[in-house]
């Protein structure tokens, strides 16, 4: 333990520590985190002590995963009790019960049995009038509508063992029944053999894991390598995984993957081969934005719909979420992330490991295929990317000795925990912080519809603060209208205007609250298009701009403009004005060679215009974003 601490001063050359940073992160597997370590005398020791006042820059030390927000200084622990261990365990037990109940019966036997019993039930339950129908002799129940039997008339020949022969009810006499029981027996035997094999395999793998661990330990003690920071984590991970992944491989993964450039023809071809939804050649692409995935809503939706039954490998819940992304039924970073995670939860619940495969590998591949489907529907947001990374690391960390139902229960609760801690509790903390910035008589301006900002406004209203809200909106989505409707219903006094009037309305505003899709490590706020404009005008009027963003949306990327990475929306939606058929000057624009329409979804607000970023770790200046990314990102907190 001590040796590890002392060598921590060596900084990984790849990670440049920019700006204000705390002491090096504690190893995640430390046992006791409460007292400040006497050896290192961390500079933030006083900050982490409870009971100090709310300072604008506040970075508590990384917390142990088992203790939730309770350990945060000035944490609203009394207001929001963290999920107590008892409740989690009970829910866990329930879940695993469900899983076993759902997955246990062998399908063939269950189906036959179920049919036999349900025939009788049906006969008793149905009370269809006019009993003049002839009753087939096989059904003895006194029913007017006979439950008709099925006759299999044509069967797809499958390799033996997979095919589930469905017998007709009429033919269900003693002989096939006997056959079925024998089948069930055979299945039981097979299952037992499989279990034995798996156990043997698990044992066989455990021993090399131990040796690998020993190797890693010895390597660590001999040379204090530059990847010191990583190796602690890596060793811990590889120990749990039971794998022997090399440090090199992990380091390779550290290098950010180059973003897909959609003007690179060969790579686009490659992508087309893989993707489910065949992208068609977009019309009139804007030259500067050719490298972005082009928007083809009109063609994608029907293709995806007609493929409904081809996508057998896809879980219905994932399919539904993808469809909702594509059609725009769900938008907004938090909502998309929650919808995706809940779909994954369902997919994991229905998942069963195929024979001769391990859960961690197969499930990771499965999740990857789901993710690529979702990307086909709409490019991922940063929040979703981070959530997926979390889920994958969680899957990889499942020890191989864990049974399938346990592993699934663990993942289920992990996802639940992510949603609760990273999104919902984070929002609550943000609300707590942000409300302190609202004073009586304030005029608050917000742009678009951000879930965090909405919660802040509502909470401040519930606290009885007297303030007014200006909602600035823009075409073509008019998201602010929905926010306006909800706020007015709550009784807030609101003003609604479009972004054209921003410079006029800014005179009376005292604070600007903005949401964000992501905050990048140079402090750039990546958000709904128009945010940069609002922030810039506010800066010009010397009005503080407060950006509310959960920390799980932070990303280590650096971006200087809105061009190199962005998303394109439906160009038709800016050419058409709903409710005004007379404005049709751009009809048939796609036929004109000289005209390209550009509907950007996001823009990047430079950090100069942002006064404060309110996140679940406190209120920080934009220059401190790299600290959050470094201290809390990279999955350190998820372990």
């Amino acid at each position: 333990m001590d040796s590890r601490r002392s060598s921590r001063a060596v900084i990984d050359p790849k990670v440049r520590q920019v700006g204000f940073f705390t002491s090096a992160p504690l190893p995640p597997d430390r046992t006791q985190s409460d007292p400040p370590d006497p050896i290192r005398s961390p500079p933030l020791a006083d900050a982490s002590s409870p009971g100090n006042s709310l300072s604008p820059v506040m970075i508590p030390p990384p917390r142990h995963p088992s203790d939730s927000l309770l350990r945060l200084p000035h944490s609203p622990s009394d207001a929001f009790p963290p999920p107590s261990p008892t409740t989690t365990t009970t829910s866990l037990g329930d879940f695993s019960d469900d899983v076993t109940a759902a997955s246990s019966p062998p399908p063939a036997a269950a189906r036959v049995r179920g049919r036999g019993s349900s025939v009788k039930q049906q006969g008793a339950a149905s009370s269809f009038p006019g009993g003049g129908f002839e009753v087939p002799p096989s059904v003895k129940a006194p029913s007017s509508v006979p439950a008709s039997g099925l006759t299999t008339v044509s069967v797809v020949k499958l390799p033996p063992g997979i095919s589930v022969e469905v017998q007709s009810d009429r033919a269900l006499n003693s002989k096939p029944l006997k056959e079925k029981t024998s089948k069930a027996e055979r299945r039981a035997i097979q299952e037992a053999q499989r279990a034995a094999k798996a156990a043997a395999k698990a044992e066989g793998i455990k021993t090399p894991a131990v040796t690998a661990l020993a190797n890693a330990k010895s390597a660590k003690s001999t040379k204090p390598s530059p990847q010191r920071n990583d190796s602690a984590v890596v060793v811990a991970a590889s120990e749990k995984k039971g794998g022997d992944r090399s440090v090199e491989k992990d380091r390779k993964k550290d290098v950010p993957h180059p973003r897909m450039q959609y003007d690179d023809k060969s790579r686009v071809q490659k992508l087309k081969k893989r993707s489910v939804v065949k992208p068609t050649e977009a019309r009139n692409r804007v030259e500067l934005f050719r490298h972005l995935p082009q928007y083809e809503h009109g063609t994608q939706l029907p293709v995806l719909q007609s493929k409904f039954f081809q996508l057998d490998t896809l879980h219905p819940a994932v399919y539904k979420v993808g469809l909702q992304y594509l059609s725009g039924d769900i938008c907004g970073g938090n909502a998309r992330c929650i919808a995706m995670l809940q779909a994954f939860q369902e997919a994991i619940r229905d998942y069963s490991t195929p024979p001769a495969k391990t859960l961690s590998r197969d499930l990771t591949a499965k999740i990857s295929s789901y993710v690529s489907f979702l990307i086909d529907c709409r490019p991922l947001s940063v929040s979703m990317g981070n959530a997926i990374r979390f889920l994958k690391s969680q899957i990889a960390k499942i020890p191989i000795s864990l049974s399938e139902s346990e592993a699934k229960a663990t993942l289920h609760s992990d996802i639940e925990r992510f949603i609760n801690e990273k999104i919902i509790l984070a929002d609550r903390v943000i609300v707590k912080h942000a409300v302190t910035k609202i004073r009586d008589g304030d005029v608050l301006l917000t742009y678009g519809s951000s879930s965090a900002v909405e919660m802040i406004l509502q909470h401040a209203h519930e606290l009885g603060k007297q303030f007014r809200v200006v909602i600035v909106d823009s075409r073509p989505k008019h998201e602010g209208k929905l926010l306006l409707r909800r706020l007015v219903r709550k009784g807030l006094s609101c003003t609604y205007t479009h972004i054209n009037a921003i410079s006029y309305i800014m005179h009376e505003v005292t604070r600007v609250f903005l949401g964000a899709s992501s905050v990048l490590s140079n402090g750039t706020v990546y958000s709904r298009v128009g945010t940069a404009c609002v922030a810039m005008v506010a800066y010009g009027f010397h009005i503080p701009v407060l950006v509310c963003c959960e920390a799980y949306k932070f990303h280590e990327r650096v971006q200087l403009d809105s061009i190199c990475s962005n998303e394109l929306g439906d160009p038709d939606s800016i050419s058409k004005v709903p409710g005004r058929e007379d404005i049709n000057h751009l009809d048939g624009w796609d036929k004109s060679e000289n005209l390209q329409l550009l509907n950007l979804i996001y823009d990047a607000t430079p950090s100069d215009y942002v006064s404060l970023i309110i996140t679940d770790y406190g209120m920080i200046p934009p220059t401190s974003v790299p600290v959050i990314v470094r201290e809390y990102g990279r999955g350190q907190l998820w372990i």
Partner: protein
Amino acid sequence: MDFQVVVLAGGTSKKLVPLVSKEVPKALLPVANRPVLSYVLEQLELSNIKDLIVVVEGADAALCVGGWISAAYVDRLHVEVATVPEDVGTAGALRAIAHHLTAKDVLVVSGDLVSDVPPGAVTAAHRRHDAVVTAMICSVPVSGLSEAGSSGAKDKTKKPGRYNIIGMDPTKQFLLHIATGAELEKDTRIRKSILRAVGQMDIRADLMDAHMYAFNRSVLQEVLDQKDKFQSLKQDVLPYLVRSQLKSEILINGAPQGQQAKENGNDKVSYRILANASTPSFHELYALGPNGSAPVRRTHKCCVYIASNSKYCVRLNSIQAFMDINRDVIGEANHLSGYNFSAQNNIIHPSAELGSKTTVGPHCMLGEGSQMGDKCSVKRSVIGRHCRIGSNVKVVNSVVMNHVTIGDGCSIQGSVICSNAQLQERVALKDCQVGLGYVVSAGCEYKGESLARKEK
């Protein structure tokens, strides 16, 4: 995808009486020399649906249909045939096989639908909205009135009962009102509550129900159990679900909208984030009630999928429709037939024999092993297998099924001649239907009649 597919193949429909019989149930009526059921099955197979339940009315018909399917689709589809008694209606048929339905949703397709609309489109719309029922709506086919020489069809198409009145919300995603043929005689009544909730309703009379529905299985079974008077999906179940969509009486145990009370506070928040992020449909707004707090009213969604005009979608439910479909499948919608058309835009089987000076025009089909004499002319017609046609025969706008013998000098216009029928010399038929095995004696002239053997 957790969908089960049920094909309602019907039995021997009364509307098609001289054409269908005990030996040829409705599902096996030939359209371009293929049973009409094959169009549905092939469309489903194209969508990668391999497991089907085919429901047939009547034991005899079931035997025929089952026999045909097992011969044609062995090794391709996994089809189970269920027999239901005759005249139970579509709802009754589903009631009878209800215990076989286990998946989350059920796709119910009529066996007489000739269409190239992918069924996945309906199911996808269903899933996207978590609907209770999704119906496919297509435009009313332009009947063959403009076509020459089918005057007998006119009075049939003029019947007002054929049309539906369909009301939708402005986004054309939800079904608000549906009135089918029988109700149209009276004034239609529209629910005020629905109209008030939506604010605006598009009422269309040029659309019709294509009889392809995606149902939530538990809801369907519940409705069928509770409302035991319901006979037909189209006239009872669907209007009922549409009517009651804002005051749902269904105990949604599958909870399609996730509106049960959330016990956990965090769940509630995530639910609210999700709900706020999407544009609420009028169902959700209505369910919220006037004060907009927790959902107080139970609703369910009835969705609609409108087949685009470029798609072909017709039901074979009348003799006129039978003629139209036959003409279209070898004519304008010839991609459905699955045949390769020759340069003359027709299909002549290589084993067919043509006499000298015999012409077969475009949009025609001549089946395997058929023989034609000299100086015949065939226009816009389908001729089945192993027919023997004499000399100087004119066949225009007609359907001639298999093993038909036609004598010299016959003239056939706008007629259907069923299998094994025999037309002796110089018979002139116009807009007639000749039943199975009927013999028309020499020199007869008929116009607009239905000729069939007396049932023994």
